[in-house]
């Protein structure tokens, strides 16, 4: 495999979730994290999943990542059943999950080292390319603890992009960051998505964030986890999180979110 072919964009994949139910049984009883959820994500689509915490967003992402199996139903990537994790679907977690015993380049190269057919020099060049893409080319030798929260998530993004996946799964990657850093990253993620054209599934509980990033936003409701509503966001990119049109979309989504959280509240009090 050559460096060019390694750096060429992998074909974005489509993801299909067909009637997936996932329940967890613990000492305290059974939780239905996902109840008969079906959805399709097109090749190269940027899909956002929003909803209050506990509505099964992470569970769904884990199933697509192959880290977890559905209790029933089917999950397909590029038409094939998902059986375990694969480098075609990389994950970015809420906590950065970077390895503190490796420096920045070492972290970005972790997945690349497991790829055969590349020389170490090529791996290093690939890592450098992605560090440059996230604006951290000067920090290759830095230790993880020396980076700010935003920089850590950039490294995590570079690490997820480095094996050239077709699908990028992001689980509230910016939730722990301050507002200013987040706004910068919204710009970056849109730029990178334009450049690398992945299918992205992005989980958040921030409605505005979802409206800013997604082609489409799916609203989840908890107990049991279900898809409640779907919104198409057809604003031009790059989008500004503070723009008025975006605010209209996020108001609409927030209204829908309030709708079912207040009915749930009323049901509970009855």
């Amino acid at each position, binding site marked *: 495999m050559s460096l060019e072919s390694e750096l060429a964009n992998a074909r974005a994949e489509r993801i299909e979730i067909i009637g997936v139910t996932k329940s967890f049984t613990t000492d305290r009883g059974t939780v239905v994290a996902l109840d008969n959820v079906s959805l399709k994500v097109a090749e190269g689509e940027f899909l956002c999943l929003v909803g209050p915490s506990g509505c099964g967003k992470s569970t769904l992402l884990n199933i697509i990542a192959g880290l977890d199996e559905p209790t029933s139903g089917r999950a397909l990537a590029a038409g094939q059943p998902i059986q375990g994790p694969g480098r075609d679907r990389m*994950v970015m977690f809420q906590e950065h999950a970077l390895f503190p015993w490796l420096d920045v380049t070492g972290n970005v190269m972790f997945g690349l080292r*497991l790829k055969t057919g590349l020389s170490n020099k090529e791996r290093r060049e690939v890592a450098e390319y992605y560090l440059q893409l996230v604006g951290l080319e000067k920090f290759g030798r830095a230790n993880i603890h020396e980076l700010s929260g935003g920089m850590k998530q950039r490294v995590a993004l570079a690490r997820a992009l480095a094996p050239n996946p077709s699908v990028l799964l992001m689980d509230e990657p910016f939730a722990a960051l301050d507002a200013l850093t987040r706004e910068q990253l919204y710009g970056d993620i849109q730029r990178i998505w334009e450049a690398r054209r992945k299918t992205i599934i992005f989980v958040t509980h921030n409605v505005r964030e979802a409206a800013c990033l997604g082609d489409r936003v799916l609203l989840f409701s908890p107990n049991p986890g279900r898809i409640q509503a779907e919104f198409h966001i057809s604003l031009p990119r790059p989008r500004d999180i503070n723009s008025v049109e975006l605010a209209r979309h996020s108001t609409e989504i927030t209204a829908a979110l309030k709708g079912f959280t207040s009915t749930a509240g009323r049901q509970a009090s009855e």
Partner: protein
Amino acid sequence: MIRAISSIAFFVVLLLSWEAASRSGLYSPVLLPSPLNVLEYLWQSALDGTLWSATLVTMQRLLAGYGIGLLFGIPLGLLTARSRIMQDTLGLLALGIQTLPSVCWVPLALLWFGQTEAAMLFVVVMGTLWSVLIATSDGVRAMPPIYLRAARTMGSTGLHTWFNVILPASLPYLVGGMKQGWAFAWRSLMAAEIFVTILTGFGLGQLLQYGRELLAMDQVVAVMTIIIVIGLLADRILFSPWERFFHRRWGTGSVK
């Protein structure tokens, strides 16, 4: 700089008052040798080779036992952390045995192995094994599970995960345990050498004990000095580099 000066000044004053005390004639020179006598003994025994051969014998015992302790302690610790049944059996046993001061192995070792090298080895292994096992297992269990999930998504499985994720993630604990194991092994070996005369080799502990029997206080103090120096050197050579590495990479001191 000021700190270095105050350290040096402290030790100079200490040595001078020691010398003064031994010259004052208040104490029997048998009980309080002068520092010069101690130095002279060190010089003599270095020249005639007694000191080197005793140090060599002791270090051989220590390194062999320590090596065996690590060889079994680390893998068993990894297994103990990752398997429920191992944790409820071996883990529990290790936790109990670890509370036993390692010197307490000496009588048992003597009964089992007699006055042999095997007894020495056994004592050192027991000193090392359990603390390394427990530290390894603690280190693995303290690892955030998200590391494993992240590694899996990047295609790491099986042995690759063990060597490239689990082991390095628990390294600060592991080195903490190795350091403790070293200290236990070193102390118990000295105790064993003092208690046990075996003809296959005279270690530092035996040299110390002969000093007592010969009422050669200069020898006793000299050997004690050597034992301290070895302890300090081991810390500097074996463990400090690791701790500096952790400090730089993790941004912490060693975890323990």
